[in-house]
């Protein structure tokens, strides 16, 4: 097997190396990918969508259909992992505490630091989501940061406690809500007599906007949807993986 | 009713009977009455077509267009009608016979038996009326599949292995040889209709290609049991006798030779085929099959197996005649389909009757049987005479024409083959009759008691025997049909 793999790798590698000779050089501003569509996005994105961050504009608007399925991939992965590892559904979430436990085992410094860090991080995550139009950021990034805060909490406390606050059921609901927001905005465009995800149609119901600003605002809605799904599903994936699907105790 | 629809009715009537047969599962008498009735209607349709064809009318109907210029279509001509007549008339007789045979042997699953029998007949008539090679091929395959349950009817190990061999042979050859050959012709010529002059005339194919195609067809239609693709036929004799009789002496094997005749007359065209180099290979393979199978038949002790090898020989006669490509030879081989059918089915019926009445399968056991079953053995004699080709039976007419055709073609070797094999036929049939009548049984002192087969068996076999004789006198109409088809006078 090793010999076979080695030969395969060498053959494929040679093919790729030979082909790479045909490629444009590093940083070539005049290579085809940096010219054709790229130029349009760079020069027109602001005009057409009123979003200065071109990545966000391309992500959520020009290629919004991709992004919707990207969100669906996350949703699908969460569902898949729950399906693979999940045990029979039982009443597991009897522990419902209002406040984080004060007398748990573990390092008090870490727990205190977490208590302090989590709200700040979550606030930052929301900034990343909301300010994605103007600075690096967006739904995915914000969602991942949000999920990271929950993961941080499970590391500092324990899984059961955190699941008492953000249960499997809630992750499912929020992931659904997120995807619903995204696809729902798309459908709303259809209902308003336009095409799927053609946000400009939404200016009919968004007060004080024109077609271009409607695109900008809808992108924010879409990003929020993405963030919700990513946050809840990544946390759910983590929770399942660390506890072998039992969702009781893990890392 | 429009005459165009008559062939469709003739084909589909037995299919329509199938649901009725299944519904009447619990009422055997009614069920068999339905079978018989469908047979009579079918035969009526076929006979009704005869005058039209003799008048030279074109009876053609397109059922379904599969691709532009490639329909599933029926066309009735003399050769097809002759074959359809053979199949339809013998179905009635066989149905009657199988009532006697199957009830006496207490076979099970008779509903299944009659259903598949009816389907097989529909497929046979479909082959007979096919207007093009595709239609013929489809019905040919349908026949293979529909007869499989009949061959394996007994369901024991022997039947299963026989059935397996049956399907392997037939499907391998038809899918492996005929289908690609057909597709190749369609790809090259774009026409699969049977035409009097053949469709390959202007195709510009090389001689080698033509020869390969010819051989693919001749061996691919393995139902014709040309050596070396004959192995399925003796194996399939495990079937109940009515099945062997109708299917393996008449319908199935004749479908094979009929298909080859169609290829030679309709796809290659007799004139064009004569120009193909090495087309004599077919002649020599057929001649070899005639002689070898007759020799093997001599050595068989099981009566049905002997009949099976005899069938292989007689089928090769037909192909041999057709491959000579002279008018008289082709007429003779077409006619031999008819004559041999009645002769051979008589023989099979007799074999079945003997088995039913006495339980004897082997020729060595049949000593003195003529005294116990005189009627059956007399009919056996008539059947043998027809197969050997002795007047006053129909077999004489066709063999005569075949011989004349061979002389026309100046193939003296073939004449010799015909004569030798006729002698061999006589050598393997007549001793049975002789031992039956003249050699006393196991215990000569015991008074012989007549113990004939049931009437349901006896009457059909005498009907076919009598028709064998009648055909000697009535061969004119049949020859006319063939002449209309070939457009020649003999």
């Amino acid at each position, binding site marked *: *097997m090793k010999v076979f*793999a*080695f030969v*395969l*790798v060498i053959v*494929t*590698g040679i093919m*790729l*190396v030979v082909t*790479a*000779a045909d*490629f*444009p*050089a*590093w*940083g*070539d*501003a005049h*290579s085809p*990918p*940096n010219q054709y*569509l*790229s*130029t349009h*996005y*760079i*020069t*027109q*994105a*602001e*005009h057409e969508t*009123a*979003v*200065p*961050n*071109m*990545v966000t*504009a*391309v992500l959520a608007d020009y*290629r919004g259909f*991709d*992004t919707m399925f*990207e969100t669906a*991939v*996350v949703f*699908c*992965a969460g569902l*898949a*992992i729950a399906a*693979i*590892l999940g045990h029979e559904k039982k009443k597991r979430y009897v522990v419902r505490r209002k406040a984080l436990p004060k007398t748990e085992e573990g390092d008090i410094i870490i727990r205190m630091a977490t208590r302090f860090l989590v709200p700040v991080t979550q606030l930052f995550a929301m900034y990343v989501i909301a300010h994605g139009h*103007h600075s*690096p950021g967006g739904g*995915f990034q914000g969602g991942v940061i949000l999920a990271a805060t929950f993961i941080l909490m499970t590391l500092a406390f324990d899984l059961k406690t955190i699941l008492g606050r953000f249960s499997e059921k809630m992750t499912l609901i929020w992931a659904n809500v997120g995807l619903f927001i995204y696809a729902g905005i798309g459908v709303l465009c259809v209902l308003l007599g336009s095409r799927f995800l053609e946000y400009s149609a939404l200016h009919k119901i968004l007060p004080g906007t024109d077609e271009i600003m409607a695109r900008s605002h809808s992108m924010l809605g879409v990003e929020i949807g993405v963030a919700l799904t*990513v946050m809840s599903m*990544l946390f759910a*994936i983590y929770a399942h*993986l660390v506890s*072998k*699907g039992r969702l009781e105790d893990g890392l | 009713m429009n005459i165009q629809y008559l062939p469709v009715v003739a084909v589909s009537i037995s299919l329509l009977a199938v649901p009725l047969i299944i519904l009447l599962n619990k009422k055997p008498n009614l069920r068999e009455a339905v079978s018989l009735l469908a047979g009579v209607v079918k035969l009526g349709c076929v006979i009704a077509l005869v005058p039209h064809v003799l008048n030279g009318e074109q009876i053609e109907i397109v059922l379904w267009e599969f691709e532009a210029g490639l329909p599933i279509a029926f066309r009735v001509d003399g050769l097809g009608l002759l074959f359809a007549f053979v199949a339809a008339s013998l179905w009635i007789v066989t149905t009657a016979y199988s009532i006697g045979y199957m009830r006496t042997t207490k076979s099970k699953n008779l509903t299944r038996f009659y259903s598949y029998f009816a389907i097989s007949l529909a497929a046979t008539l479909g082959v007979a009326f096919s207007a093009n090679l595709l239609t013929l091929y489809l019905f040919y395959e349908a026949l293979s599949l529909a007869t499989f349950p009949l061959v394996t009817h007994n369901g024991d190990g022997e039947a299963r292995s026989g059935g397996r061999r049956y399907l392997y042979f037939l499907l391998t050859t038809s899918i492996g040889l005929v289908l690609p050959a057909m597709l190749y012709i369609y790809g090259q010529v774009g026409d699969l209709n049977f035409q009097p002059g053949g469709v390959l005339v202007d195709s510009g194919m090389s001689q080698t290609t033509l020869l390969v195609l010819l051989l693919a067809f001749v061996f691919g239609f393995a139902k014709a049991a040309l050596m070396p693709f004959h192995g399925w036929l003796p194996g399939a004799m495990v079937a109940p006798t009515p099945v062997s009789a109708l299917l393996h002496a008449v319908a199935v094997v004749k479908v094979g030779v009929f298909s080859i005749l169609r290829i030679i007359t309709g796809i290659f065209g007799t004139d064009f085929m004569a120009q193909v180099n090495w087309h004599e290979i077919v002649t020599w393979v057929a001649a070899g099959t005639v002689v070898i199978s007759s020799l093997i038949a001599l050595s068989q002790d099981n009566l049905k197996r002997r009949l099976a090898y005899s069938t292989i020989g007689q089928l090769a006669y037909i192909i041999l005649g057709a491959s000579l490509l002279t008018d008289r030879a082709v007429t003779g081989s077409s006619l031999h389909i008819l004559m041999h059918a009645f002769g051979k089915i008589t023989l099979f019926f007799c074999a079945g009757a003997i088995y039913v009445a006495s339980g004897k399968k082997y020729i060595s056991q049949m000593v003195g049987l003529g005294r116990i079953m005189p009627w059956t053995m007399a009919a056996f004699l008539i059947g043998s005479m027809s197969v050997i080709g002795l007047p006053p039976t129909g077999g004489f007419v066709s063999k005569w024409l075949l011989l004349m055709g061979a002389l026309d073609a100046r193939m003296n070797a073939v004449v010799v083959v015909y004569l030798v094999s006729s002698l061999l036929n006589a050598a393997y049939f007549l001793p049975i009759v002789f031992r039956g009548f003249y050699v006393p049984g196991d215990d000569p002192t015991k008074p012989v008691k007549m113990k004939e087969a049931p009437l349901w068996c006896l009457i059909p076999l005498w009907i076919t025997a009598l028709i064998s004789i009648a055909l000697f006198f009535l061969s004119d109409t049949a020859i006319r049909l063939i002449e209309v088809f070939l457009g020649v006078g003999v």
Partner: protein
Amino acid sequence: MSDVLTFIISRFNYWIYIVLMMIGLYAMIAKRNYVKKFIGMSIFQTAIILFYVSTGVKSGATIPILEHGHDIGHAAAAINPDHYANPLPHVLMLTAIVVGVATLGVALAVVQKVHDQYETIEEPEILFKLGQE
């Protein structure tokens, strides 16, 4: 000679991605431990991501976010495409990253399930235990 060197150096991003990708491919096929295989899978996918992103690079360009973005008054003509990196590969790779994470997550979940069943994640041992069933 210097031409060759220039050629090699000007395309160093491709060499890196090819090497990484082949390492990943080798690990996926040749390694026996499934976790290692999936680490190889991750490397493999990351190499492709690297390839894509490196195609969007322009020398001397900045991130694809318009400067003074709020000020739409700046005419579009003033935007110099060479001044900003190509945003499209970034978008595509964001998707590819997510897909990679999702696949890895599912793969690890399956590994856990297999480990529950066979108490090993070594391919030969799993095959051995399957053979015993």
